[in-house]
């Protein structure tokens, strides 16, 4: 463990604890902002896992965001399940969706795969629009939330947000530090060689796809719990893919640090400059363009060229004679 890594891990643990304990120290507004930010981080990190590590470029993660969110609404609003419990339970739905989706798309390469995921998300949106059970195109409101006091809601959603961070960012970090993390990188760099060294490339890709679906789904459930309202276009909004692309590319693909940096930039830029309407969006678009043209490794990549102090070290560094360290 590097020094910066120790500091970062401590900070990370403190951050998760702080998120969990938000009701004790944060205003309601702060809680809501942090929850939104956590959702951005989670969705972006899941996309990063797919594109940056498994080499699967998806523009259809909103399919999983949407189905989980809808599942939560149905469980809570229609069946009266405690919404906080429902949010956790709803993760099963994106997992169920991810399995046939991967089965259908796994043979596709690169851009084909991307367009395929997009179409799947569109299909989910159209299906939701046609389902009267979930109120079709009119959407649903989560009125059951008014049954809970502000404090109860704050406690519930803070715990969920902490859980979300822990599973997506913490989970990714654990995964990347485990041997599977190495296998993912190996697979991205050279799938043929990885297979010849015992890595089950097909299975690992599948598992990553399903895990990313689950993580994005949990983010969706938490996000729409805070939104209180869901409609097919908002649930299956391609903006989820856009947001993930922006965050990961500007922050730096293939690193957790990049996702954190990108999410913060997106979140604050959105809050501070959002009122400038189209001019702000023009700048945001051009920034993405520039990142693709001039700094593909993102801001974290630029930063790392200056100082190599990863917050989430996943490198294995061999220290001859003194043993090995991670």
């Amino acid at each position, binding site marked *: 463990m590097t020094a910066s890594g120790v500091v970062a891990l401590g900070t990370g643990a403190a951050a998760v604890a702080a998120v969990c304990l938000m009701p004790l120290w944060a205003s309601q507004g702060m809680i809501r902002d942090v929850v939104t930010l956590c959702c951005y981080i989670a969705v972006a990190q899941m996309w990063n896992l797919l594109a940056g590590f498994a080499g699967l470029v998806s523009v259809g993660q909103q399919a999983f965001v949407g189905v989980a969110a809808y599942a939560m609404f149905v469980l809570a609003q229609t069946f009266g399940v405690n919404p906080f419990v429902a949010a956790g339970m709803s993760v099963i739905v994106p997992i169920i969706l991810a399995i046939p989706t991967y089965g259908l798309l796994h043979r596709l390469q*690169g851009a084909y795969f991307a367009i395929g995921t997009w179409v799947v998300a569109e299909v989910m949106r159209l299906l939701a629009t046609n389902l009267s059970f979930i109120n079709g195109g009119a959407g649903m409101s989560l009125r059951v939330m008014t049954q809970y006091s502000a404090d109860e809601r704050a406690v519930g959603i803070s715990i969920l947000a902490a859980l979300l961070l822990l599973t997506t960012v913490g989970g990714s970090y654990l995964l990347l530090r485990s041997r599977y993390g190495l296998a993912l990188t190996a697979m991205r760099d050279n799938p043929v060689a990885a297979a010849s060294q015992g890595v089950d490339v097909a299975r690992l890709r599948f598992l990553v796809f399903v895990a990313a679906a689950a993580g994005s789904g949990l983010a969706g459930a938490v996000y729409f719990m805070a939104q209180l309202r869901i409609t097919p276009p908002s649930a299956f909004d391609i903006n989820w893919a856009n947001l993930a692309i922006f965050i990961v590319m500007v922050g730096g693909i293939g690193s957790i640090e990049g996702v954190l940096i990108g999410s913060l930039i997106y979140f604050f830029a959105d809050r501070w400059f959002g009122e400038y309407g189209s001019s702000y969006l023009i700048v945001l678009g051009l920034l993405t363009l520039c990142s693709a043209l001039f700094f593909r490794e993102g801001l974290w990549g630029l930063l790392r060229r200056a100082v190599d102090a990863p917050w989430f070290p996943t490198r294995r560094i061999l220290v001859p004679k003194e043993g090995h360290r991670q």
Partner: protein
Amino acid sequence: MLWLDGLVQGVLLGGLYAQYALGMALMFGVMKIINVTHGDLVILLALVGISLAGSFPLGPWGVLVLLVPIGAAVGWLLQRGVLNRVVGDDPLPSLIATFGLSVALQNAILEIWSADTRSLSGGGIEQASVALGPIFVGVLPLIVLACATLLTGGLDAMLRFTRFGRALRAASSDVEAAAMTGVNPKAVYAMATAIAVGILGFAATFQAMRATVAPADGPYQLIYAFEAVIIGGLGSIWGAFVGAMVLGVSQAIGFRISPGFGILAGHLVFLAVLAIRPNGIMGRAQ
């Protein structure tokens, strides 16, 4: 009767999708560039056309004649300025770059033209039709289909039989080997994108005549263009045309089953084609 009418209207709808798909077939199918700004360029061109028609007595065909070279110029600039830096086997850079450009372009269009919905008057042609027995065939859709067919034939012939077409196919197959054979890949690519966006001049004119355009409309037809190209098979121009027809007919039949099911039907057929023939209907197997 219902189904025959569905088939006819579906083919006509396919003609519209083919207009969108052709430029995409060249860029995505042949050059392997994911161009997310495709739809936004149509809107940009259409609005330019509508503004021109508002200032000069051009008529729709005059607009078309102007939009094609304007589109070509835009395409040339796009390839030279942006896309030549992101071409390659990895789809991600072109996706990211054009995605960013798309967001910027949409909002720049909003700034310039405001959010108003506009259309281009075709002087009545958009409402004219010929009756074939009980089936009415719109004149404008027929022109669209005829144009799409001619463009497809022309583009396909250009790729197959001209020096430029061969150079482009060579460059997309192996950029370095093409350069070793005396082809200047960057110039060829710029020319190809100029052609692709020039073709969008047709799509823009027809879209503005048959319906409307507004700044946020760009992405809506994008997915159909991608689908048509993939259904047809990458690299095949006639494939994209056939893909557009498949999509048009699937949707039209779907609409007749239920208006809310048409678009879904198109997507489902797309997914089915992917599952059964991942290389597309006319794509060469690996």
